[in-house]
């Protein structure tokens, strides 16, 4: 395990969620669960983040925003779709303005279903994402992980 998975910084974006999942995300960040024990910090800045948490489905309004946030995050990065709306569109799937789940727009690494998703499930999903983050780092480095980023490998 490298330092990468010991300090995952997350950014949270609310797609077109009913706010149920967002409240659970904030609940997971509160002192009771204390995710800073694992080095997790909620940043408001995609350029500092490693993990992208999205709640709610993708619609016409936010498609550009989600792509923009994803592209502004430095590699390696992982995306978590939180809640059933983000994983597949949920009950809003057939709405005229809804594209569907997050994976219609950007590649999703971990799906965490639930309506609303529980804080324990969110933390579990983030821990699972850490393993994927490690794998992505190894792929980026081509197995030679002694080198640091910046396109040196």
């Amino acid at each position: 395990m490298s330092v990468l998975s010991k300090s995952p910084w997350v950014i949270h974006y609310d797609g077109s969620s009913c706010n149920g999942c967002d409240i659970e995300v904030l609940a997971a960040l509160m002192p009771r669960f204390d995710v800073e024990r694992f080095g997790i910090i909620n940043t408001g800045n995609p350029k500092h983040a490693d993990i992208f948490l999205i709640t709610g489905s993708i619609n016409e309004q936010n498609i550009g925003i989600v792509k923009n946030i994803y592209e502004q995050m430095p590699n390696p990065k992982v995306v978590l779709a939180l809640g059933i709306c983000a994983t597949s569109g949920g009950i809003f799937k057939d709405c005229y303005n809804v594209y569907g789940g997050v994976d219609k727009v950007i590649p999703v690494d971990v799906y965490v279903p639930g309506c609303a998703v529980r804080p324990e499930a969110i933390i579990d999903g983030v821990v699972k994402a850490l393993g994927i983050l490690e794998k992505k780092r190894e792929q980026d480095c081509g197995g030679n992980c002694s080198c640091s980023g910046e396109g040196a490998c």
Partner: protein
Amino acid sequence: MSVLLQGLLYIVLAPILGGLLSGFDRILTARIQSRVGPPILQPFYDVGKLFSKEQLLVLKSQSIFVIGLLISMIITGALFFAQQDFLIVMFVFSLSGVFLVLAAYQIGSPYSFVGAERELIQMLAYEPMILLIPVGVYMAIGSFSIQDILNSPDPLFFQLPGIFFGYLYVLTIKLRKGPFDLSASHHAHQELVKGITTEFSGPNLALIELAHWYENILLLGIIYIFFAPWPVVAVLVAIGTYALEIFVDNSFSRVKWDLLLKSSWWMTLILGGGNIVYLYLVKQFPALFSF
């Protein structure tokens, strides 16, 4: 121990001590908020991770200013711990602040820009007090050399209590602690996105953090010289001051920039200026004070 060796020791040890101090800071903050908090080595994990991330640059020149910030901060601290001229130390110190502002200004991102503006206001607030420290030191012992300060028989604190407490006031700004944490929003991660460091990612952000660790050790070193003849007391006061800053950080909500500016200038005028006027009167008219 030669002074050169002390300067080199600072360059090697300051990031280690600064990182541990930052880890201690995060644990104490967590305990104040009824949390367990991260491991004490968490800041090292964070910086290590940032070095292994991709470097996203808006402009290539932004790296140059960040490296300038780190180098000028290391030079400041090395000059200080190598017991050179206090006045030079303070001037190079100001330069490092300017590098960070320039790095954030040139990018053109609105968040970064507002962060840089606020950082300039913070510099306006703390610089007068920072410059009064060498002035007070010169009036007290007649030299700007840090070697002479360390060799003086009595602690500077007894001649410069006002300057010491004025320095404590602006130290909150320099350590980027609440209620004066306007430009970087160190704890409130959502405000201003991340202010002055918004547009820095990966290795550049790690270098800024590293410079901040060097800076923190230097700032605590300045507290040390007020109690230099008693090393144990001096170290305890420095650690106590840092703990006090953490408590203040967790106890107050953020102030607006105009209150920050006004209050620090009043503190500088009353505590710093008052101390210097008192010292002047004592030196010029000792008869007045021989009761």
